[in-house]
């Protein structure tokens, strides 16, 4: 038997890209379960249909680029993109909306830039923003949560997705929307008068966020990513919310807890901000990256026109990631600090 001649090291750690992706997929499960419980089967249908489209797009792109389709499909990155985008989309979105979003994510945001690892922007968020700008109406229709309105069943969810013309959607504003548009009521009164509000934030939303927090904590435990970016993001968001809470006046931006448990905060912190490809790499860089995303989220939520801000904040900071990396290069062994002028 001929002896193999290859480069060292000969041993390899247990981690693989495929495993990273699979762990991320697994960690979304609690969040999806809670979403389905409060908002019905819409998200699940989104995810199923989105995954099919994503795998098809990925296969097509790989084929066109002359890569080994089977080998690269196995890395599960397309599935991760599909899951993340479909979780972010409103439930009961029509099939074409999902298809356009996924195609933008996989083809435009990922393969046009050279495929996995070369994309400067988070594919799921690019897909989301493309849809939000192109189809604002469909993108802002959120179903009422269980306990506030009627939750559609599985058949209705399928109908909403594949025969959108025949489906009559029941929608209502999200708590974030309600809060932003409020300029007359004290927060206390707003809570009493609006049906969507629960204990700390919107009904359902608070539990969805807690579920994603749990999933994220598990990923942290699995050492899929480091704590730096998500913690920095949550901390800066909470800090800003606390600064501008204003005691719950009519001009208040909402309490820190409200912001932490509303919209896509936890989902963004643990599943979007932690995307390794598009975030800063050095640990100090990740702290800065996360903190600035927190600032942007709060600013856009309170001052902007869109229902949530995670996508825009993340995309803006994707721009800055290489820059942050450049200025947070660690000191190399045997070099004096500041000796290396970047």
């Amino acid at each position: 038997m001929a002896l193999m001649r290859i480069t060292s090291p000969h041993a390899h750690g247990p981690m693989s890209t495929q495993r990273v992706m699979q762990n991320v997929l697994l960690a979304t499960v609690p969040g999806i379960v809670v979403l389905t419980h409060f908002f019905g089967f819409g998200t699940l249908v989104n995810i199923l249909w989105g995954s099919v489209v994503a795998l098809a797009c990925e296969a097509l792109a790989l084929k066109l680029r002359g890569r080994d389709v089977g080998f690269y499909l196995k890395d599960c990155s397309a599935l991760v993109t599909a899951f993340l985008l479909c979780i972010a989309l409103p439930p009961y979105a029509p099939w074409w909306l999902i298809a356009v979003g996924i195609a933008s994510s996989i083809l435009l945001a990922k393969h046009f830039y050279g495929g996995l690892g070369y994309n400067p922007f988070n594919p799921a968020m690019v897909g989301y923003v493309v849809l939000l700008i192109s189809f604002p109406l469909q993108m802002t229709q959120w179903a009422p949560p269980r306990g506030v309105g009627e939750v559609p069943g599985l058949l209705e969810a399928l109908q909403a997705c594949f025969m959108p013309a025949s489906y009559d959607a029941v929608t209502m504003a999200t708590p974030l929307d309600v809060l932003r548009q409020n300029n007359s009521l004290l927060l206390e009164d707003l809570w009493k008068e609006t049906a969507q509000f629960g204990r700390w934030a919107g009904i359902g939303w608070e539990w969805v966020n807690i579920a994603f927090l749990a999933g994220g904590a598990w990923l942290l435990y699995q050492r899929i990513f480091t704590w730096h970016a998500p913690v920095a993001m949550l901390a800066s968001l909470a800090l800003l919310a606390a600064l501008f809470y204003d005691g719950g006046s009519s001009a208040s931006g909402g309490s820190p807890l409200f912001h932490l448990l509303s919209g896509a905060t936890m989902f963004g912190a643990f599943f979007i901000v932690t995307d390794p490809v598009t975030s800063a790499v050095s640990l100090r860089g990740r702290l800065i990256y996360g903190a600035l995303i927190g600032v942007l989220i709060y600013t856009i939520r309170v001052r902007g026109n869109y229902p949530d801000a995670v996508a825009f904040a993340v995309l803006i900071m994707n721009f800055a990631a290489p820059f942050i990396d450049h200025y947070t290069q660690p000191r190399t062994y045997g070099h004096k600090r500041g000796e290396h002028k970047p």
Partner: protein
Amino acid sequence: MALVGLAAVFGALLGFAAIRFKTEGNPIVDQINEILPQTQCGQCGYPGCKPYAEAIAGGDRINKCPPGGEAGIQALADLLDLEVIPLDDEHGEEDPRPAVAFIREDECIGCTKCIQACPVDAILGAAKQMHTVIASECTGCDLCVEPCPVDCIDMIREEESLQNWHWALPNPVSRQVEIIATDAAQATSGQDRAA
């Protein structure tokens, strides 16, 4: 008024930047000459590297230097902000193995023709005396081969050995297990032979 103020401020800023961040580069010809391999072989059609550097600065194409090879073209393209073009075959082919002239000394008649041809004085000898090449000074330019009346000069290419072997970059697109360079080379040479 505000516009004028802005214009003044930015003008001052730009002016300051122009002085503060002034790049003190050597003239372009020297920079080009720095990139050229200094074999002085004349394969580019100019009598030496400096004249070719001057010609490039004057607008000549950057793909006439086989000893510099693709890497040289790349460096020139970077410096001059030009497009990378393939090496012009007319001027010869790139051979990455460095060459050294070798005089078969028992055949040398001592005519000094090669000594006169050598652009870097790497050949030692006198009329009617045997000549020899100082290998460490030889640039492998070939210029001594042609004038030799008895054709006793060989260009010897350095072969890969334990001393000069080194790792090659892995092929990023390859689905193959990254085998080291020599295996890859064997594989391709095998294919060549088959073809």
